[in-house]
């Protein structure tokens, strides 16, 4: 059990959020360019039978 309780305490990392946000924005732009948002839309406007426990 000691393995699980040995996790060291972490510290807040200030300023890391900005590069991570940039990565997010770049990924989103690439996703838009590759028309992946259209794929998201196509799935989201159909009732997913599996998701509601029928399919």
């Amino acid at each position, binding site marked *: 059990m000691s393995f699980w309780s040995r996790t060291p*305490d972490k510290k*807040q990392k200030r300023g890391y959020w900005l590069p991570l*946000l940039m990565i997010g924005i770049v990924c*989103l732009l690439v996703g838009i360019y590759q028309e992946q948002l259209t794929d*998201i839309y196509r799935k989201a406007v159909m*009732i997913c039978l599996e998701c509601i426990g029928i399919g």
Partner: protein
Amino acid sequence: MKHRFGLQRIRLLFQILYTIVTNGYVYGYLQGKIYKGPLKYACVPGLNCYSCPGATFSCPLGALQAALNERQIQIPFGVLGFLFIFGSIFGRFVCGWLCPFGLFQDLLHRIPLFHKRKRLPGHKVLKYGKYLVLVGLVLVGSSVLFTGFAKIPAFCKYLYPSGTLMGAIPLLGVNEQLQSQIGGLFYWKLGILMGLVILSIKIYRPFCQYLCPLGAVYGWFNRFSLVQIHWEQDACISCDACKEACPVNLRPEQISVSAECIKCGKCISVCPTRCLHYGRKPKVEKKHGQVKDMIATKCKMEQNPNRIDKNENQ
């Protein structure tokens, strides 16, 4: 103390408003149909079953699984973009302040039944369950499991209780065509939902603590995110009021950095020296009088550690 007491009311208001905005398509509930407008191009930060008749946006996990369900898997940049943007800004603040299924569990936990517990026995191991669900069901399961020739969104199909609650039950309530197709899978998922409902009355947010893959993702972002709760260690008098108030039992040095912290702010509301706060700017100004007051409080507590009336500070 009044304005700090109000923080939890503001949080409740945020949760309700967010739920209405993301699941408030009333026409869908009445007709047993789902919204098909342009808002569904975008994912929202929290879990949001897009087969729910009220859903106005897409769900990041549903979209991720849909991308992995494609015959030729490509890197799902769009969904990753949403996850990085929400994660880098909010971390698990999304869980504490926005997610509708989090609100549902919060409300269940308020029901005055059973002796309340913060965690399940074996929490130190069980908390890794959400990572197992993320890897096993969302990433691997959705990439390799098939029904016939089609891949399946394994997490939504076998586990996702919010889909049963917000999608299946309202849709089946009014859509007779769907009612005729109910089978074993539906009862399996209904069983999971009922089990979690009962568990949530006793344990604080069991789904969020042990099963939610989105909580696992945002947990990783927690200590990097813009929204943070800051702990001014110098002003802390080690009274443990925050740990006692914390629904997931975190120590002050774990606040906001632990992947388990949902940034709900309950610890802020009870801190007697106000050394916890959202944002960067220190609230404890080192003015002569205030420092003296704090030292006096600390001295009194050392003489009698039970001095702080917890009820007064809740």
